[in-house]
């Protein structure tokens, strides 16, 4: 029995210490995936917590065929998509929850970046555009894109994790990149990425 298998057995037997260890190991990955998906700190934290609670509840169903982080990613994506679906059904949801620092690249605990304020503001502007472009994608496109681009999950793994065909993952990715390209086209020249003719 490998070390990981032993660890999984401990988790399945309800060992709370093993569970805490799993949270410590994976909390950053899961939080940042949640941050990429939701686009804001508070929803990300909420989603990440929900992922671990679901993992705790359903650890018995984890057969250990996939890696632990792939399984957690799968829970994160499905929880996110499910929440989005529920939210889109509820037409009375307050569009911008003011208690959240929505779409805010900085965390309340973070200090403002020192240095040239103009440069910092310019940097924030680029981050703002990128975030805007990302949030402009559909939830499924965003999920697939962030998994591939920021979390280094291979197309095959994403397909397995989301229970969809590889072809579907590729077309979602293709559409996502096309949309991002359209949204960010004006930067290509500014950043010297425009092909010289």
């Amino acid at each position, binding site marked *: 029995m490998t070390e990981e298998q032993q660890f999984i057995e401990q988790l399945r037997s309800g060992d709370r210490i093993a569970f*805490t260890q799993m*949270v*410590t190991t994976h*909390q950053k990955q899961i*939080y*940042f995936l949640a*941050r990429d998906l939701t686009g804001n*700190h508070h929803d990300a*934290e909420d989603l*990440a*917590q929900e992922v*671990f*609670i679901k993992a*705790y509840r359903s650890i018995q169903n984890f057969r250990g065929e996939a890696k632990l982080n792939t399984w957690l990613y799968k829970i994160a994506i499905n929880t996110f998509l499910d929440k989005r679906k529920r939210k889109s059904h509820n037409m009375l949801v307050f*569009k*911008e929850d*003011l208690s959240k620092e*929505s*779409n*805010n*690249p*900085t*965390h*309340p*605990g*973070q200090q*403002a970046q020192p240095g040239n*304020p103009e440069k910092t*503001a*310019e940097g*924030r*502007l*680029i*981050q*703002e555009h*990128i*975030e*805007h*472009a*990302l949030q402009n994608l559909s939830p499924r496109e965003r999920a697939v894109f962030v998994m*591939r*681009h*920021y979390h280094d999950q*291979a*197309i095959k793994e994403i397909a397995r994790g989301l229970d969809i065909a590889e072809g579907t993952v*590729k077309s979602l*990715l*293709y559409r996502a*990149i*096309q949309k*991002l*390209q359209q949204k*960010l*086209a004006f*930067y*290509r020249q500014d*950043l010297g*990425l*425009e*092909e010289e003719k």
Partner: protein
Amino acid sequence: MSECSKCRKYFVDALYDELTPEQKDHFNHHMETCSSCRSEFEKMKSALEIMDLREQESLPGEFWTNFQQRLELRLDREAKRKNPKVVQFFSPLKMFRTVPRWTQYLAAAILLIAIGIFIGRYFSPESYSPEPVAQINEISPSLIQQTAVDDRAYRYLERSKILLLGIVNLDPEAEEASAPDYSRERQVARSLIQETAVLKDDLTDANRRKLYQLVSDLEVILLQIANLETENDLPAVEMIRSGVDRRGILLKINLEEMDRDNRGASGLIDSKKTEKKTKI
């Protein structure tokens, strides 16, 4: 299927280096000969390069400790919900039912009298708790300073609101037809940006974090306005509108103003109470 559409099917794999050697040969061969596919591919590739500029939020170490503590609490609550240990040592209602009826009536009467006394004492308009009278004249210098910062912040918000309303409420069709001039908006935005830096330095208090955040959000929008082309920069105006809408900037400004008005009103009530007490 044309060669181009076959090749475009490989775009995603090629972008993430997931082509098999055979597919790679086929892809490279087509790209060498087809300028249209090559240009399309380059565009997608550069979009990904821009996405690489995205910075990851850095969180303080204590966030992760708190994260685990909150999770532990939620799990404990979850576990208690699953196995509720209901042990009833004492049930007042059950005990009440067992005593003779006359005792029940007596207890109810005593309870009613007690409630009456409580209401009379605490909710009568004439009754004031014997709080010490506030010393109106002794206002600390830090309070004066805070009030000055608040006033400055709200004047700043008011000016920003007027500027944003002007931009948000422009009619796009009329704009397109009339080629509007944004030089006035740019000028106002620039003067507000200058104010922003000073204001942010004064809003470092923990209880002003929300206001600080709003001013930071506004800074980004103001920068976009300051960078508008002088005439007819419709795509940029559209982006500003969407930023204002998405961040709920106007709503947040209104809430800050309401918040301030409420604080002002409660301050007024307090001072009136104090006045009355002084007269008594």
